[in-house]
């Protein structure tokens, strides 16, 4: 008995710049809102879904059961189980892989997969000195021991450690790592700005044409992605000062790098026969997926180019080439990530990607990138586009992640 996992639809909050309209909402609030929007769209109030998988990259220790707590706050049946997953920026796509595999194995017939992140409500880390002293004090058996533990706290221990996206093994921020890649793969400023410009133009066109009407639900008075600049120009992008890289090599700006973003996105997946029974849309099936990792610590490879390892493995297993795809979704961590990925695929002999098929409805540069939510955004949008193209249309998703990892997936319209 074989089972087919299909994408039924999706829902997300509009994405907004961190510290703005969603500043008072937590990652859990955002995920709950995304789930509730999906529940409303597909009439799932009170329904038991076989499993909900989601996660967040910026996670408070109180959110140890973030997804289950969001389910309990949603209108889904309390009998809906949930799991938290984490694979940095690939979290959302990994959640789709996990749930679609369960559907394919017959362990689930319906599932929700996605992710959420609030850079506004990020956990603040305390210093090691303070953390250890508090732990010692909580273990102390006498008042004296407790006071002794607390007395060991130095004034410098009280400084909060500012949140940052730093690779623990290299000490480089993601932008600094990508600056190395940008230089190595000789990605020009002009190409980066052009890709960023296209992203804004494409996303704006998708919004204007109503493409997101059944993919996004307004939240906190926001009904459209707020980072989107439909009126930006190549001249404006060219005028921005560089923020990553050194000297003449510096080409990366705030305009061709993603902004810190708040938002959540979820996808409804089902076994094909269940979707047909319920008269749910059958947008696309999950064909296959692959994870890979790069040796970035030694500098031999690039932090964000692991998808260039995953893609050939995936193509080989399916007997496919890059020419078999009508659409490509390359997550725009930075414009230069996408451009270096395309160059590497070509140089490694995997093949050339037609730029006109890439990110046709915009991607993270224009929409924003609430880390764990990006996978859900891409899967729902691509599945809808493929369904419009008609049966057999294939799409490839590629998402890079911290730790030198990459997740890729093939969707195909049924």
């Amino acid at each position, binding site marked *: 008995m074989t089972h087919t996992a299909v994408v039924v639809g999706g829902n997300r909050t509009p994405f907004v710049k961190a510290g703005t*309209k969603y500043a*008072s*909402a*937590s990652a*859990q*609030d955002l995920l*709950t*809102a995304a789930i*509730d929007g999906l529940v409303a769209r597909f009439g799932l109030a009170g329904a038991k879904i076989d499993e909900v998988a989601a996660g967040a990259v910026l996670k408070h220790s109180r959110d140890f059961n973030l997804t289950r707590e969001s*389910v*309990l*706050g*949603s*209108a*889904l049946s*309390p009998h809906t189980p949930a799991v938290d997953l984490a694979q940095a920026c690939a979290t959302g796509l990994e959640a789709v892989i996990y749930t679609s595999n369960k559907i394919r194995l017959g362990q689930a017939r319906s599932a929700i997969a996605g992710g959420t992140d609030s850079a506004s409500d990020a956990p603040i880390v305390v210093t090691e000195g303070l953390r250890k002293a508090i732990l010692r004090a909580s273990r102390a058996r006498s008042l004296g021991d407790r006071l002794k533990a607390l007395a060991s706290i130095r004034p410098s221990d009280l400084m909060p450690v500012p949140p940052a996206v730093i690779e623990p093994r290299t000490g480089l921020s993601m932008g600094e790592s990508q600056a190395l890649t940008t230089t190595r793969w000789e990605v020009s400023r002009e190409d980066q700005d052009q890709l960023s410009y296209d992203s804004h133009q494409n996303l704006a066109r998708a919004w204007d044409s109503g493409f997101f009407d059944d993919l996004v639900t*307004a*939240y*906190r*008075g926001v009904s459209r992605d707020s980072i989107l600049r439909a009126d930006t120009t190549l001249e404006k992008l060219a005028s921005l000062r560089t923020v990553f890289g050194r000297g003449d090599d510096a080409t990366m700006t705030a305009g061709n790098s993603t902004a810190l973003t708040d938002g959540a996105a979820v996808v409804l997946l089902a076994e094909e026969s269940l979707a047909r029974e319920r008269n749910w849309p059958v947008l696309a099936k999950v064909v296959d997926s692959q994870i890979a990792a790069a040796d970035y610590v030694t500098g031999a490879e690039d932090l964000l180019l692991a998808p260039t390892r995953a893609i050939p493995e995936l193509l080989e297993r399916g007997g496919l080439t890059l020419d078999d795809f009508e659409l490509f979704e390359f997550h725009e961590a930075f414009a230069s990530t996408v451009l270096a990925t395309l160059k590497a695929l070509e140089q490694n002999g995997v093949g050339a990607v037609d730029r006109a098929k890439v990110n046709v409805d915009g991607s993270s540069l224009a929409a924003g990138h609430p880390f764990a939510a990006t996978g859900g955004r891409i899967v729902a949008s691509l599945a809808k586009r493929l369904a419009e193209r008609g049966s057999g249309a294939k799409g490839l998703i590629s998402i890079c992640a911290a730790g030198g990892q990459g997740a890729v997936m093939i969707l195909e319209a049924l």
Partner: protein
Amino acid sequence: MGAKLPRGEVSLDDYRQDLEQSAAYARVTGFSVKDAVPATWLHVCTFGLQGRILRSKEFPFSLAGLVHVSNEMVLHRPVGVAERLRLAVTAENLQPHKKGATFELRGRIHVGDELVWEGSSNYLSTKADVPGDPPETKRLPMPEAQAGGASQRWRLPADLGRQYARVSGDWNPIHLHPLTARIFGFPRPIIHGMWTHARALAAFGGQLPDAYRVRVQFTKPILLPGRVGFVVDGDSFAVVDKEGKPKLVGELTEVPAAS
């Protein structure tokens, strides 16, 4: 010579809900920050108008002796945080009571011409005297606790009254600090009844219906800091002390949603 309530309604057109305040309210009372707001938040929206009636020259009773006895509200349909509201409050239904007199503050909220929320707060004035026989009041049924007791335990911190005052605008000194509470005869501050009400509604999580009627009776004050339990059995719910005695008894029923 009996006391008379002020006549007529006080109202506010085109009331814009404060997004930040509604999120902070959700945080303090245990709700998720959703665009569809809880019925108890809409009560908070009318709280300023309630105050205008209670502080008006025509209002016959002293504020210091007022006790919030019970509350009832109906949410006719989900109300969005971005919706503009028309708020109206009246004072009605003055009745004799064995400890004084009771009256209701009735609130109504419209969006356009549509009635979306109604609320009624029943107050007892112990310093009032209204002639006549007190009408009988029905006690809400106490829910049956599961074997083993309350299924939820809430820890109420010492500053919860100040937290709730900030998000609700109810700065009654009995809720704020031991010193101010002592002036009014409480050994410690007590939490606002409407916090307990909201927290109980939040305990239903995502299972709250789109449209509902909720009634609560405040039976005993909760001292801060404190610990209470929550018991639910079908439509009935209660907030209880550690012996299982009720602090609040309530009833939640789904009503057909107005579309």
